[in-house]
Structure formats: structure tokens, C-alpha cells
């Protein structure tokens, strides 16, 4: 009865097409449907147009629906990427952007690590062996000076040897010495 006024009064008609929701499409369909009913009472020849309009409205519904879904998907994807970016940036500032258990080395740092554990192990072994030999030499020198030892004598027993050989070697040396001393 008051269709004319209603038609122009539906807010969906005034909206930005990109902001339309499926509900808006239903409102539009409702209004157009009411108008069509009025027209169809006037003449049956409009029924073909009526079907076409209904079909267009259905297509409209699908498109608006699909558009809104895509928009939502894109928004979610964007938020995920934002989060990921934030994480990567935070990690980058922590110095391990190349992954967990990895370390970035500043090649310009004169104090950067550059020797392997094996190399350190060998250097330490050599240091300790030399230290042991020095201690023995000092001991012998002391004996020699105090006149206990008549002459410098080979005394190479017990240098702290490489850890896996410790026991074996010291025994070998000991045996050696015992033999020498027995003579």
C-alpha cells in the first residue's frame, strides 16, 4: 500500500555498494518483490520480467555473499602476516634471525670465536704437558742444586698425558725408570 514510500526509504538502497551485506540484499529483494506483486496484478505479461528480476537478485545475493567472505579471508591473512612480521623482526633484533640454535658472528669483531673445540683441546693438552715437564725440570734442578742428585739424569716420568692414556703412559714411564734405576 505504501510501497512507493518504502522503496525509496529502504536504507540498503542508499548504501555504498561495497558495504552491502546479504541482509541488505534480502531487504532490497523484499521491497522489489512487493512492488512486483502490485505490477503483476495489473498485467500477466510482466511475469517473465519478474523471474528475470528474481534471478538477478539471487545473483546479487551470491556476489555480495562471496565478496564479503573474500574480504574477511583477506583480512585474516593480512593479520597473520602482520603477526609473522612482528615475530621475525623481534627475532632479528635478538641476533638469531637465521633460526634457533644458530648464532650470528660479527666478522669485524676482533674477539669473535674462530677456533674449534678440538683445536682448543690440543692447545690445552700441549700447555699442560709443557707445564708438567717444567715442574719436573724444576724439581730435578732443585735436587741437582741441593747435591742429592750427582748428575743430571733423564727423568721423564709422569707427564700429564692425554686423558685417555693417562694410566697406561705413567705406568710405562714408571717401569722404564724402575729398570734404569735397577741398573
Amino acid at each position, binding site marked *: 500500500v505504501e510501497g512507493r514510500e518504502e522503496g525509496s526509504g529502504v536504507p540498503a538502497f542508499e548504501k555504498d555498494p561495497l558495504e552491502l551485506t546479504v541482509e541488505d540484499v534480502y531487504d532490497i529483494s523484499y521491497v522489489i518483490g512487493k512492488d512486483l506483486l502490485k505490477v503483476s496484478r495489473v498485467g500477466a505479461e510482466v511475469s517473465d520480467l519478474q523471474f528475470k528480476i528474481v534471478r538477478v537478485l539471487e545473483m546479487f545475493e551470491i556476489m555480495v555473499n562471496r565478496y564479503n567472505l573474500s574480504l574477511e579471508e583477506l583480512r585474516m591473512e593480512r593479520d597473520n602476516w602482520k603477526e609473522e612480521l612482528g615475530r621475525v623482526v623481534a627475532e632479528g633484533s635478538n641476533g638469531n634471525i637465521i633460526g634457533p640454535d644458530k648464532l650470528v658472528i660479527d666478522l669485524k669483531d676482533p674477539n669473535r670465536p674462530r677456533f674449534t673445540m678440538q683445536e682448543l683441546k690440543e692447545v690445552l693438552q700441549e700447555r699442560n704437558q709443557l707445564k708438567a715437564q717444567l715442574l719436573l725440570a724444576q724439581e730435578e734442578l732443585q735436587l741437582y742444586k741441593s747435591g*742429592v742428585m750427582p748428575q743430571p739424569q733423564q727423568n721423564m716420568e709422569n707427564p700429564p698425558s692425554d*686423558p*685417555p692414556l693417562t694410566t697406561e703412559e705413567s705406568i710405562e714411564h714408571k717401569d722404564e725408570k724402575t729398570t734404569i734405576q735397577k741398573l
Partner: protein
Amino acid sequence: MAKKTYDLLFKLLLIGDSGVGKTCVLFRFSDDAFNTTFISTIGIDFKIKTVELQGKKIKLQIWDTAGQERFHTITTSYYRGAMGIMLVYDISNAKSFENISKWLRNIDEHANEDVERMLLGNKCDMEDKRIVPKAKGEQIAREHGIRFFETSAKANINIEKAFLTLAEDILRKTPVKEPNSENVDISTGGGVTGWKTKCCS
């Protein structure tokens, strides 16, 4: 004939968290000195000290390990040669006490089965900063059947006692042939060989 400077050689090892004072404990024992500046041990170091026990001159070769995890592979390779191991924690550092079980596991994994173990709660001069009660140290030592001392390298408390006790415990289980007073060397050789047979068989 050359006079030998010692009768027996014992190899000891110091382990425990970084900064608990292993190097200071050793420095106090070997040089009777103390240094407050903290220099982290690089990998492994050693000191020698000859002591006299039950009329025997015993040369102690004491290995001092780095407590830092990054030296783990180097330090654990020294466990096997040790006849005695001192596990040190810091009475003002709860973490170092909690890690005792980790260090004991390291001993089980890498050391000789019959290694003599000892627990030291170091820095006992710092009573105002104490976090680990003495009773807790005694308890964990009792649970594992090992000796326990609270020590202070700085105030020179129990340091010599700890080392001498460990050496005595090792000496007690070292089979030594009755020394022929004219030839000390044979008994020494016998002692070490005896120890070897015991630990490597």
C-alpha cells in the same frame, strides 16, 4: 742412584658449576693464597702438590676443570683418569647446589666406577649470603654415600683437610706391597700397577 721425590701419584679432579670457586680452592691448597678477581678457567688446568700421608710421599696431580657448559666435551675427557673427584658448589648459589645431581650423573657416565667422590660446599665464610643450609649439603652427601665438607678458600677453612681426607681415602683402597725399605721404587710400581688392575679389569 737418583732419589725419587714421591712414592705414589694420585690424580684428582675438581668439578662443579662455574664460579663456585674450584680454582680458588685449588690455589689455596697448592699455593696457600687467595685471589678475589674472577678469571674463568679455560677448559682444563692442573696443579701439583706433594703431601705426606702414613709415611708416604704422595704427589697429588689435581686437575681443575672449567665449570662452563661450553667446555663440557673437553672437561669430561679428563674424568676417566681421575682417582678422586671433588664436586664443589657455592653455599650462596642455589643453582650450583641444584646442579649437584647433574654433576654426579657426569661422574657416573665418564669416570671410573671406583672413583673416590667428595662434596664441598664452598664460600662458607659468607654466612650472610648463605642460601644452602649446611644440613642440606650433609643430607645429599649422605644420600650418595660420599664425604662432605663446607670450605672457604678465602678464609682457608677445611681446604687442606678436604684434600688430605680424599687422598687418604684413595690411599686406603690402593693396594700397596709392604715396602722394602731399601727399594722404595718397587713398592711404588706395585702400588700403581695394583691400582690399574683394580680399575681397568
